[in-house]
Protein backbone atom coordinates (compact mmCIF):
# COMPACT_ATOMS: atom_id res chain seq x y z
CA UNK A 1 0.00 0.00 0.00
CA UNK A 2 1.13 3.52 -0.75
CA UNK A 3 2.16 5.26 2.48
CA UNK A 4 0.28 8.50 3.17
CA UNK A 5 3.36 10.41 4.20
CA UNK A 6 7.05 9.78 3.90
CA UNK A 7 7.37 10.01 7.67
CA UNK A 8 5.93 6.57 8.36
CA UNK A 9 8.30 4.17 10.09
CA UNK A 10 8.28 0.42 10.22
CA UNK A 11 8.08 -0.65 13.83
CA UNK A 12 9.66 -3.93 14.75
CA UNK A 13 10.43 -5.56 18.06
CA UNK A 14 14.13 -5.64 17.40
CA UNK A 15 16.06 -7.65 19.98
CA UNK A 16 18.11 -5.40 22.23
CA UNK A 17 21.83 -5.69 21.84
CA UNK A 18 23.93 -6.62 24.86
CA UNK A 19 25.00 -3.04 25.46
CA UNK A 20 21.40 -1.88 25.44
CA UNK A 21 20.37 -4.70 27.75
CA UNK A 22 22.78 -3.82 30.55
CA UNK A 23 21.45 -0.22 30.61
CA UNK A 24 24.76 1.19 31.82
CA UNK A 25 25.83 3.04 28.65
CA UNK A 26 22.37 4.56 28.39
CA UNK A 27 22.46 5.56 32.06
CA UNK A 28 25.88 7.17 31.64
CA UNK A 29 24.58 8.98 28.59
CA UNK A 30 21.63 10.30 30.56
CA UNK A 31 23.88 11.40 33.39
CA UNK A 32 26.04 13.24 30.91
CA UNK A 33 22.99 15.12 29.66
CA UNK A 34 21.84 16.08 33.15
CA UNK A 35 25.29 17.20 34.26
CA UNK A 36 25.45 19.46 31.22
CA UNK A 37 22.29 21.13 32.47
CA UNK A 38 23.91 21.53 35.88
CA UNK A 39 26.28 24.13 34.47
CA UNK A 40 23.87 25.75 32.08
CA UNK A 41 22.55 29.26 32.59
CA UNK A 42 19.48 29.18 34.82
CA UNK A 43 16.21 30.46 33.47
CA UNK A 44 14.79 31.54 36.83
CA UNK A 45 13.83 35.20 37.21
CA UNK A 46 14.18 36.17 40.88
CA UNK A 47 10.91 38.02 40.91
CA UNK A 48 10.78 40.74 43.52
CA UNK A 49 14.37 41.83 42.84
CA UNK A 50 14.44 41.23 39.11
CA UNK A 51 11.37 41.91 37.07
CA UNK A 52 10.78 40.24 33.81
CA UNK A 53 10.36 42.60 30.92
CA UNK A 54 6.76 43.11 29.88
CA UNK A 55 5.35 43.72 26.47
CA UNK A 56 4.54 47.41 26.00
CA UNK A 57 0.82 46.68 25.88
CA UNK A 58 0.88 44.40 28.94
CA UNK A 59 -2.48 44.25 30.73
CA UNK A 60 -1.97 44.29 34.47
CA UNK A 61 -3.55 46.11 37.40
CA UNK A 62 -6.09 48.81 36.52
CA UNK A 63 -5.77 52.50 37.16
CA UNK A 64 -8.51 55.12 37.33
CA UNK A 65 -7.09 58.21 35.66
CA UNK A 66 -7.42 61.83 36.62
CA UNK A 67 -7.50 64.62 34.07
CA UNK A 68 -4.84 67.31 33.73
CA UNK A 69 -6.42 69.32 36.59
CA UNK A 70 -6.44 66.38 38.91
CA UNK A 71 -10.16 65.65 38.74
CA UNK A 72 -11.37 62.07 38.40
CA UNK A 73 -12.39 61.28 34.86
CA UNK A 74 -14.80 58.48 35.72
CA UNK A 75 -18.47 59.47 35.43
CA UNK A 76 -19.81 56.19 36.71
CA UNK A 77 -21.64 55.44 33.48
CA UNK A 78 -21.32 51.69 34.07
CA UNK A 79 -20.18 50.80 30.55
CA UNK A 80 -17.10 49.07 31.89
CA UNK A 81 -19.22 46.96 34.23
CA UNK A 82 -21.47 46.04 31.31
CA UNK A 83 -18.52 45.20 29.11
CA UNK A 84 -16.77 43.13 31.75
CA UNK A 85 -17.08 39.46 30.80
CA UNK A 86 -16.07 38.32 34.27
CA UNK A 87 -18.46 40.70 36.05
CA UNK A 88 -15.67 41.91 38.22
CA UNK A 89 -16.58 45.59 38.32
CA UNK A 90 -19.21 47.13 40.61
CA UNK A 91 -19.83 50.80 41.30
CA UNK A 92 -22.25 53.23 42.88
CA UNK A 93 -22.81 56.74 41.54
CA UNK A 94 -23.24 60.08 43.24
CA UNK A 95 -24.00 63.57 42.08
CA UNK A 96 -21.31 66.21 42.23
CA UNK A 97 -22.06 68.92 44.80
CA UNK A 98 -21.15 72.57 44.12
CA UNK A 99 -17.54 73.17 45.10
CA UNK A 100 -16.38 69.73 44.13
CA UNK A 101 -15.41 70.68 40.60
CA UNK A 102 -11.78 70.24 41.44
CA UNK A 103 -12.42 66.64 42.49
CA UNK A 104 -14.70 65.34 39.78
CA UNK A 105 -14.66 66.23 36.13
CA UNK A 106 -18.38 65.95 35.43
CA UNK A 107 -21.68 66.18 37.29
CA UNK A 108 -21.83 62.50 38.09
CA UNK A 109 -19.04 60.49 39.62
CA UNK A 110 -18.35 57.07 41.11
CA UNK A 111 -18.89 57.16 44.86
CA UNK A 112 -17.47 53.65 45.10
CA UNK A 113 -15.70 51.72 42.40
CA UNK A 114 -14.61 48.17 43.06
CA UNK A 115 -12.80 45.62 40.92
CA UNK A 116 -12.54 42.08 42.18
CA UNK A 117 -9.05 41.15 41.10
CA UNK A 118 -9.75 37.46 41.58
CA UNK A 119 -12.60 37.62 39.05
CA UNK A 120 -10.87 39.94 36.61
CA UNK A 121 -9.39 38.20 33.60
CA UNK A 122 -7.41 41.27 32.48
CA UNK A 123 -8.96 41.27 29.02
CA UNK A 124 -9.00 45.05 28.72
CA UNK A 125 -12.62 45.29 27.63
CA UNK A 126 -13.34 47.88 30.38
CA UNK A 127 -10.64 50.08 28.94
CA UNK A 128 -12.10 49.70 25.47
CA UNK A 129 -15.63 50.42 26.66
CA UNK A 130 -14.74 53.53 28.62
CA UNK A 131 -15.92 56.66 26.78
CA UNK A 132 -14.04 58.99 29.13
CA UNK A 133 -10.55 57.42 29.05
CA UNK A 134 -10.89 56.91 32.76
CA UNK A 135 -9.82 53.30 33.19
CA UNK A 136 -6.63 51.77 31.86
CA UNK A 137 -4.73 48.58 32.42
CA UNK A 138 -1.11 49.13 33.43
CA UNK A 139 2.06 47.08 33.64
CA UNK A 140 1.77 46.83 37.40
CA UNK A 141 1.19 43.41 38.92
CA UNK A 142 -1.62 42.69 41.37
CA UNK A 143 0.32 41.54 44.42
CA UNK A 144 -0.48 38.24 46.05
CA UNK A 145 -2.32 38.17 49.35
CA UNK A 146 -3.55 35.71 51.93
CA UNK A 147 -7.11 37.01 52.25
CA UNK A 148 -9.72 36.89 49.49
CA UNK A 149 -11.47 40.02 50.73
CA UNK A 150 -8.36 42.09 50.14
CA UNK A 151 -8.49 41.36 46.43
CA UNK A 152 -11.56 43.57 46.02
CA UNK A 153 -9.79 46.78 45.12
CA UNK A 154 -11.62 50.02 45.93
CA UNK A 155 -11.00 53.54 44.77
CA UNK A 156 -8.20 53.95 47.30
CA UNK A 157 -6.09 51.50 45.35
CA UNK A 158 -7.35 52.17 41.85
CA UNK A 159 -7.41 55.94 41.49
CA UNK A 160 -4.02 57.36 40.64
CA UNK A 161 -2.37 59.86 42.98
CA UNK A 162 -3.16 63.52 42.46
CA UNK A 163 0.46 64.69 42.40
CA UNK A 164 1.69 65.37 38.89
CA UNK A 165 4.88 63.31 39.36
CA UNK A 166 3.12 60.30 40.84
CA UNK A 167 0.65 59.82 38.00
CA UNK A 168 0.59 56.40 36.39
CA UNK A 169 1.97 56.43 32.87
CA UNK A 170 -0.37 54.74 30.44
CA UNK A 171 1.11 56.16 27.24
CA UNK A 172 2.52 52.74 26.33
CA UNK A 173 -0.96 51.32 26.02
CA UNK A 174 -2.09 54.13 23.74
CA UNK A 175 -0.58 52.81 20.56
CA UNK A 176 -0.39 54.77 17.37
CA UNK A 177 -3.62 53.22 16.11
CA UNK A 178 -5.48 54.16 19.27
CA UNK A 179 -4.28 57.75 19.14
CA UNK A 180 -5.23 57.94 15.48
CA UNK A 181 -8.68 56.63 16.34
CA UNK A 182 -9.12 59.26 19.02
CA UNK A 183 -8.23 62.09 16.67
CA UNK A 184 -11.26 61.23 14.59
CA UNK A 185 -13.61 64.14 15.21
CA UNK A 186 -16.64 62.29 13.96
CA UNK A 187 -16.58 59.95 16.89
CA UNK A 188 -16.14 62.73 19.44
CA UNK A 189 -16.38 60.21 22.15
CA UNK A 190 -13.76 61.84 24.24
CA UNK A 191 -14.85 65.41 23.83
CA UNK A 192 -15.71 67.66 26.74
CA UNK A 193 -19.14 69.14 26.41
Amino acid sequence: MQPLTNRSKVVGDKKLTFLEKIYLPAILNGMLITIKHFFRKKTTVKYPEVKREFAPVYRGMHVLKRDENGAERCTSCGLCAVACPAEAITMTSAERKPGEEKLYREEKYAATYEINMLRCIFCGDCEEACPKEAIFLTDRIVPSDTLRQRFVYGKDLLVEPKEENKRIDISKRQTKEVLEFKKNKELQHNKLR
Partner: protein
Amino acid sequence: MVSYLIYKAILVLIIFGITLFIAMYSTYAERKVAAFLQDRLGPDRAGPFGILQPLADGVKMFMKEEIIPDVSNKFLFLLGPSLAMLTCLMTGAVIPWGSSITINGTPYSLQVTDVNIGILYLLGVASVGVYGIMIGGWASNNKFALLGALRASSQMISYEIGMGLSIIALVMTTGTLSIGEIAAQQHGGHWNVFYQPLGFLIFLICAFAETNRAPFDLPECESELVGGYHTEYSSMKLGFYLFAEYINMFISSAIIATLYFGGYNMPFIGRFIHDPNMLTLLGTAFLFLKIFFFIFLFMWIRWTLPRFRYDQLMNLGWKGLLPLAILNIGITGVVMWLMGKI
Protein backbone atom coordinates in the same frame (compact mmCIF):
# COMPACT_ATOMS: atom_id res chain seq x y z
CA MET B 1 38.18 3.23 82.17
CA VAL B 2 36.23 6.42 82.84
CA SER B 3 38.36 8.38 80.40
CA TYR B 4 37.77 5.64 77.82
CA LEU B 5 34.03 5.93 78.29
CA ILE B 6 34.15 9.72 78.08
CA TYR B 7 36.19 9.56 74.88
CA LYS B 8 33.76 7.09 73.32
CA ALA B 9 30.76 9.16 74.44
CA ILE B 10 32.25 12.30 72.93
CA LEU B 11 33.06 10.47 69.71
CA VAL B 12 29.52 9.08 69.50
CA LEU B 13 28.06 12.51 70.10
CA ILE B 14 30.26 14.10 67.45
CA ILE B 15 29.41 11.44 64.88
CA PHE B 16 25.72 11.71 65.79
CA GLY B 17 25.83 15.47 65.37
CA ILE B 18 27.72 15.33 62.09
CA THR B 19 25.38 12.69 60.73
CA LEU B 20 22.31 14.77 61.56
CA PHE B 21 23.95 17.91 60.23
CA ILE B 22 24.88 16.30 56.94
CA ALA B 23 21.45 14.69 56.60
CA MET B 24 19.90 18.10 57.23
CA TYR B 25 21.98 19.72 54.55
CA SER B 26 21.42 16.79 52.21
CA THR B 27 17.78 17.86 51.99
CA TYR B 28 18.98 21.29 50.96
CA ALA B 29 21.54 19.82 48.58
CA GLU B 30 18.89 17.57 47.07
CA ARG B 31 16.68 20.52 46.26
CA LYS B 32 19.58 22.56 44.94
CA VAL B 33 20.93 19.71 42.80
CA ALA B 34 17.46 18.94 41.49
CA ALA B 35 16.97 22.57 40.60
CA PHE B 36 20.36 22.93 38.94
CA LEU B 37 19.88 19.79 36.90
CA GLN B 38 16.58 21.23 35.70
CA ASP B 39 17.95 24.71 34.88
CA ARG B 40 16.37 26.25 37.97
CA LEU B 41 17.93 27.93 41.00
CA GLY B 42 16.24 26.11 43.85
CA PRO B 43 15.62 27.52 47.33
CA ASP B 44 17.40 30.86 47.72
CA ARG B 45 15.18 32.90 50.03
CA ALA B 46 16.09 31.74 53.56
CA GLY B 47 19.48 33.24 54.21
CA PRO B 48 22.23 33.72 51.61
CA PHE B 49 21.77 31.12 48.84
CA GLY B 50 18.99 29.67 50.97
CA ILE B 51 21.33 27.94 53.39
CA LEU B 52 18.85 28.38 56.22
CA GLN B 53 16.25 26.42 54.26
CA PRO B 54 16.72 23.16 56.25
CA LEU B 55 16.04 25.09 59.46
CA ALA B 56 12.90 26.59 57.97
CA ASP B 57 11.81 23.13 56.83
CA GLY B 58 12.48 21.72 60.28
CA VAL B 59 10.47 24.46 61.96
CA LYS B 60 7.67 23.85 59.48
CA MET B 61 7.70 20.12 60.21
CA PHE B 62 7.49 20.73 63.96
CA MET B 63 4.70 23.29 63.66
CA LYS B 64 2.47 21.14 61.47
CA GLU B 65 -0.60 19.49 62.90
CA GLU B 66 0.09 15.99 64.08
CA ILE B 67 -2.48 13.50 62.90
CA ILE B 68 -2.66 9.94 64.17
CA PRO B 69 -5.43 8.08 62.34
CA ASP B 70 -8.18 6.68 64.59
CA VAL B 71 -8.01 3.29 62.93
CA SER B 72 -4.26 2.98 63.25
CA ASN B 73 -2.38 0.98 65.82
CA LYS B 74 -1.09 3.86 67.92
CA PHE B 75 1.93 2.17 69.43
CA LEU B 76 3.22 0.74 66.17
CA PHE B 77 2.36 3.97 64.39
CA LEU B 78 4.78 5.76 66.69
CA LEU B 79 7.30 2.92 66.64
CA GLY B 80 7.68 2.97 62.84
CA PRO B 81 9.48 6.30 62.36
CA SER B 82 11.41 5.89 65.60
CA LEU B 83 12.73 2.54 64.45
CA ALA B 84 13.60 3.91 61.00
CA MET B 85 15.57 6.72 62.64
CA LEU B 86 17.23 4.42 65.19
CA THR B 87 18.47 1.83 62.73
CA CYS B 88 19.87 4.33 60.27
CA LEU B 89 21.81 6.04 63.06
CA MET B 90 23.15 2.75 64.41
CA THR B 91 25.24 2.00 61.34
CA GLY B 92 27.56 4.95 61.86
CA ALA B 93 29.18 3.19 64.84
CA VAL B 94 31.28 0.74 62.85
CA ILE B 95 32.46 3.07 60.10
CA PRO B 96 36.09 4.19 60.50
CA TRP B 97 35.89 7.95 60.12
CA GLY B 98 39.66 8.26 60.22
CA SER B 99 42.70 6.43 61.57
CA SER B 100 43.60 7.69 65.05
CA ILE B 101 44.49 10.92 66.75
CA THR B 102 47.28 10.86 69.33
CA ILE B 103 46.83 13.14 72.31
CA ASN B 104 49.45 13.03 75.10
CA GLY B 105 50.81 9.78 73.76
CA THR B 106 47.47 7.96 73.83
CA PRO B 107 46.03 7.06 70.41
CA TYR B 108 42.33 7.71 70.04
CA SER B 109 40.75 5.80 67.16
CA LEU B 110 38.14 7.70 65.17
CA GLN B 111 36.03 4.58 64.87
CA VAL B 112 33.49 4.12 67.63
CA THR B 113 33.85 0.36 67.69
CA ASP B 114 35.84 -1.89 65.39
CA VAL B 115 33.83 -5.07 65.88
CA ASN B 116 35.46 -7.96 64.07
CA ILE B 117 32.19 -8.77 62.28
CA GLY B 118 31.55 -5.16 61.21
CA ILE B 119 30.19 -6.12 57.82
CA LEU B 120 27.73 -8.59 59.30
CA TYR B 121 26.65 -5.87 61.73
CA LEU B 122 26.05 -3.54 58.76
CA LEU B 123 23.93 -6.07 56.94
CA GLY B 124 22.06 -6.93 60.13
CA VAL B 125 21.19 -3.33 60.93
CA ALA B 126 20.18 -2.73 57.32
CA SER B 127 17.76 -5.66 57.61
CA VAL B 128 16.25 -4.26 60.79
CA GLY B 129 15.81 -1.00 58.89
CA VAL B 130 13.06 -2.66 56.87
CA TYR B 131 10.97 -2.94 60.03
CA GLY B 132 10.72 0.82 60.46
CA ILE B 133 9.05 1.13 57.07
CA MET B 134 7.06 -2.09 57.32
CA ILE B 135 5.65 -1.39 60.78
CA GLY B 136 4.85 2.21 59.86
CA GLY B 137 3.06 1.18 56.68
CA TRP B 138 1.14 -1.60 58.36
CA ALA B 139 0.14 0.40 61.44
CA SER B 140 -1.35 3.20 59.30
CA ASN B 141 -4.20 0.88 58.28
CA ASN B 142 -4.24 2.38 54.82
CA LYS B 143 -4.02 0.42 51.61
CA PHE B 144 -1.50 2.72 49.99
CA ALA B 145 0.70 2.64 53.05
CA LEU B 146 0.43 -1.13 53.21
CA LEU B 147 1.31 -1.48 49.53
CA GLY B 148 4.30 0.80 50.02
CA ALA B 149 5.42 -1.18 53.04
CA LEU B 150 5.03 -4.44 51.14
CA ARG B 151 7.05 -3.10 48.27
CA ALA B 152 9.72 -1.78 50.61
CA SER B 153 10.12 -5.03 52.49
CA SER B 154 10.25 -7.28 49.43
CA GLN B 155 12.57 -4.87 47.62
CA MET B 156 14.98 -4.54 50.49
CA ILE B 157 15.05 -8.26 51.18
CA SER B 158 15.69 -9.01 47.51
CA TYR B 159 18.49 -6.54 47.18
CA GLU B 160 20.10 -7.49 50.44
CA ILE B 161 21.01 -10.81 48.84
CA GLY B 162 22.84 -9.17 45.96
CA MET B 163 24.50 -6.80 48.39
CA GLY B 164 25.60 -9.58 50.71
CA LEU B 165 26.98 -11.68 47.89
CA SER B 166 28.91 -8.76 46.41
CA ILE B 167 30.42 -8.18 49.85
CA ILE B 168 31.38 -11.86 50.11
CA ALA B 169 33.68 -11.42 47.11
CA LEU B 170 35.15 -8.39 48.83
CA VAL B 171 35.66 -10.34 52.03
CA MET B 172 37.41 -13.05 50.03
CA THR B 173 40.02 -10.62 48.74
CA THR B 174 40.46 -8.73 51.99
CA GLY B 175 40.25 -11.73 54.27
CA THR B 176 38.52 -9.86 57.07
CA LEU B 177 35.06 -8.81 58.20
CA SER B 178 36.31 -5.87 60.23
CA ILE B 179 35.60 -2.60 58.47
CA GLY B 180 38.47 -0.83 60.21
CA GLU B 181 40.89 -3.41 58.85
CA ILE B 182 39.39 -3.26 55.34
CA ALA B 183 39.90 0.50 55.36
CA ALA B 184 43.47 0.17 56.65
CA GLN B 185 44.32 -2.44 54.00
CA GLN B 186 43.55 0.01 51.21
CA HIS B 187 46.47 2.21 52.22
CA GLY B 188 48.61 3.42 49.34
CA GLY B 189 46.09 3.49 46.53
CA HIS B 190 45.16 -0.21 46.75
CA TRP B 191 41.51 0.67 46.60
CA ASN B 192 39.17 -2.29 46.50
CA VAL B 193 37.29 -0.85 43.54
CA PHE B 194 40.26 -1.80 41.34
CA TYR B 195 40.11 -5.41 42.56
CA GLN B 196 36.32 -5.69 42.69
CA PRO B 197 34.86 -3.48 39.91
CA LEU B 198 31.89 -5.75 39.30
CA GLY B 199 31.32 -6.18 43.01
CA PHE B 200 31.37 -2.42 43.42
CA LEU B 201 28.79 -1.97 40.68
CA ILE B 202 26.47 -4.54 42.25
CA PHE B 203 26.97 -3.01 45.67
CA LEU B 204 26.23 0.46 44.34
CA ILE B 205 23.00 -0.61 42.65
CA CYS B 206 21.93 -2.51 45.77
CA ALA B 207 22.74 0.53 47.91
CA PHE B 208 20.35 2.57 45.77
CA ALA B 209 17.64 -0.03 46.29
CA GLU B 210 18.36 -0.36 50.02
CA THR B 211 18.00 3.38 50.61
CA ASN B 212 14.77 3.50 48.58
CA ARG B 213 16.21 6.08 46.26
CA ALA B 214 15.27 6.64 42.64
CA PRO B 215 15.23 4.73 40.33
CA PHE B 216 14.13 2.25 42.99
CA ASP B 217 11.90 4.52 45.07
CA LEU B 218 8.85 2.34 44.59
CA PRO B 219 7.88 2.17 48.28
CA GLU B 220 7.04 5.85 48.24
CA CYS B 221 6.27 6.53 44.60
CA GLU B 222 3.83 9.37 44.69
CA SER B 223 2.34 8.78 41.27
CA GLU B 224 1.02 5.34 42.22
CA LEU B 225 0.78 5.15 45.99
CA VAL B 226 0.08 8.75 47.08
CA GLY B 227 2.99 8.76 49.55
CA GLY B 228 3.65 5.06 49.92
CA TYR B 229 4.41 3.88 53.42
CA HIS B 230 4.29 7.40 54.88
CA THR B 231 0.92 8.38 53.40
CA GLU B 232 -0.74 8.70 56.82
CA TYR B 233 2.17 10.39 58.52
CA SER B 234 2.30 14.08 59.23
CA SER B 235 4.37 16.56 61.18
CA MET B 236 7.78 15.48 62.46
CA LYS B 237 6.95 11.77 62.19
CA LEU B 238 6.92 12.26 58.44
CA GLY B 239 10.04 14.33 58.93
CA PHE B 240 11.68 11.37 60.68
CA TYR B 241 10.99 9.10 57.73
CA LEU B 242 12.32 11.61 55.22
CA PHE B 243 15.27 12.33 57.46
CA ALA B 244 16.02 8.64 57.88
CA GLU B 245 16.24 8.34 54.09
CA TYR B 246 18.87 11.06 53.96
CA ILE B 247 20.82 9.59 56.85
CA ASN B 248 20.69 6.23 55.08
CA MET B 249 22.04 7.92 51.99
CA PHE B 250 24.90 9.46 53.94
CA ILE B 251 25.75 6.19 55.68
CA SER B 252 25.54 4.25 52.41
CA SER B 253 27.90 6.74 50.79
CA ALA B 254 30.25 6.35 53.75
CA ILE B 255 30.13 2.56 53.43
CA ILE B 256 30.78 2.66 49.69
CA ALA B 257 33.68 5.06 50.20
CA THR B 258 35.11 2.93 53.00
CA LEU B 259 34.71 -0.50 51.44
CA TYR B 260 35.65 0.31 47.86
CA PHE B 261 37.31 3.71 47.68
CA GLY B 262 39.97 3.55 50.32
CA GLY B 263 38.03 5.09 53.18
CA TYR B 264 40.16 7.72 54.89
CA ASN B 265 43.25 6.83 52.83
CA MET B 266 44.62 9.57 50.66
CA PRO B 267 47.23 8.45 48.15
CA PHE B 268 50.63 10.25 48.09
CA ILE B 269 49.78 12.64 50.93
CA GLY B 270 52.19 10.81 53.28
CA ARG B 271 55.10 12.16 51.26
CA PHE B 272 54.29 15.78 52.01
CA ILE B 273 52.88 15.75 55.53
CA HIS B 274 54.45 13.79 58.36
CA ASP B 275 52.53 14.90 61.43
CA PRO B 276 50.27 11.88 62.14
CA ASN B 277 47.44 13.93 63.68
CA MET B 278 47.40 16.24 60.68
CA LEU B 279 47.38 13.22 58.40
CA THR B 280 44.41 11.75 60.25
CA LEU B 281 42.42 14.96 59.99
CA LEU B 282 43.25 15.30 56.31
CA GLY B 283 42.24 11.68 55.79
CA THR B 284 38.91 12.30 57.48
CA ALA B 285 38.38 15.34 55.31
CA PHE B 286 39.21 13.26 52.26
CA LEU B 287 36.76 10.57 53.37
CA PHE B 288 34.05 13.20 53.66
CA LEU B 289 34.94 14.46 50.21
CA LYS B 290 34.37 10.97 48.86
CA ILE B 291 31.13 10.71 50.82
CA PHE B 292 29.90 14.00 49.40
CA PHE B 293 30.69 12.82 45.92
CA PHE B 294 28.61 9.70 46.44
CA ILE B 295 25.75 11.69 47.95
CA PHE B 296 25.89 13.84 44.84
CA LEU B 297 25.91 10.68 42.73
CA PHE B 298 22.76 9.49 44.52
CA MET B 299 21.04 12.77 43.67
CA TRP B 300 22.44 12.92 40.18
CA ILE B 301 21.04 9.47 39.41
CA ARG B 302 17.73 10.33 41.02
CA TRP B 303 17.18 13.32 38.78
CA THR B 304 18.34 11.47 35.68
CA LEU B 305 16.54 8.15 35.68
CA PRO B 306 12.83 7.39 35.68
CA ARG B 307 11.43 4.93 38.19
CA PHE B 308 11.59 1.20 37.51
CA ARG B 309 8.42 -0.82 37.19
CA TYR B 310 8.00 -3.29 40.02
CA ASP B 311 8.51 -6.44 37.94
CA GLN B 312 11.57 -4.84 36.34
CA LEU B 313 12.92 -4.17 39.80
CA MET B 314 12.45 -7.78 40.85
CA ASN B 315 13.86 -9.04 37.55
CA LEU B 316 16.96 -6.92 37.98
CA GLY B 317 17.44 -8.03 41.54
CA TRP B 318 16.86 -11.75 41.17
CA LYS B 319 17.77 -12.47 37.56
CA GLY B 320 20.41 -9.81 37.04
CA LEU B 321 22.32 -8.93 40.17
CA LEU B 322 22.10 -12.24 42.01
CA PRO B 323 23.68 -14.37 39.22
CA LEU B 324 26.20 -11.60 38.56
CA ALA B 325 27.19 -11.54 42.22
CA ILE B 326 27.60 -15.30 42.27
CA LEU B 327 29.64 -15.09 39.06
CA ASN B 328 31.75 -12.41 40.71
CA ILE B 329 32.44 -14.70 43.64
CA GLY B 330 33.47 -17.45 41.21
CA ILE B 331 35.76 -15.17 39.23
CA THR B 332 37.30 -13.82 42.41
CA GLY B 333 37.94 -17.35 43.63
CA VAL B 334 39.51 -18.46 40.36
CA VAL B 335 41.76 -15.40 40.13
CA MET B 336 42.87 -15.79 43.71
CA TRP B 337 43.61 -19.46 43.10
CA LEU B 338 45.59 -18.63 39.98
CA MET B 339 47.57 -16.01 41.88
CA GLY B 340 48.29 -18.56 44.56
CA LYS B 341 46.53 -16.70 47.35
CA ILE B 342 44.51 -19.68 48.43
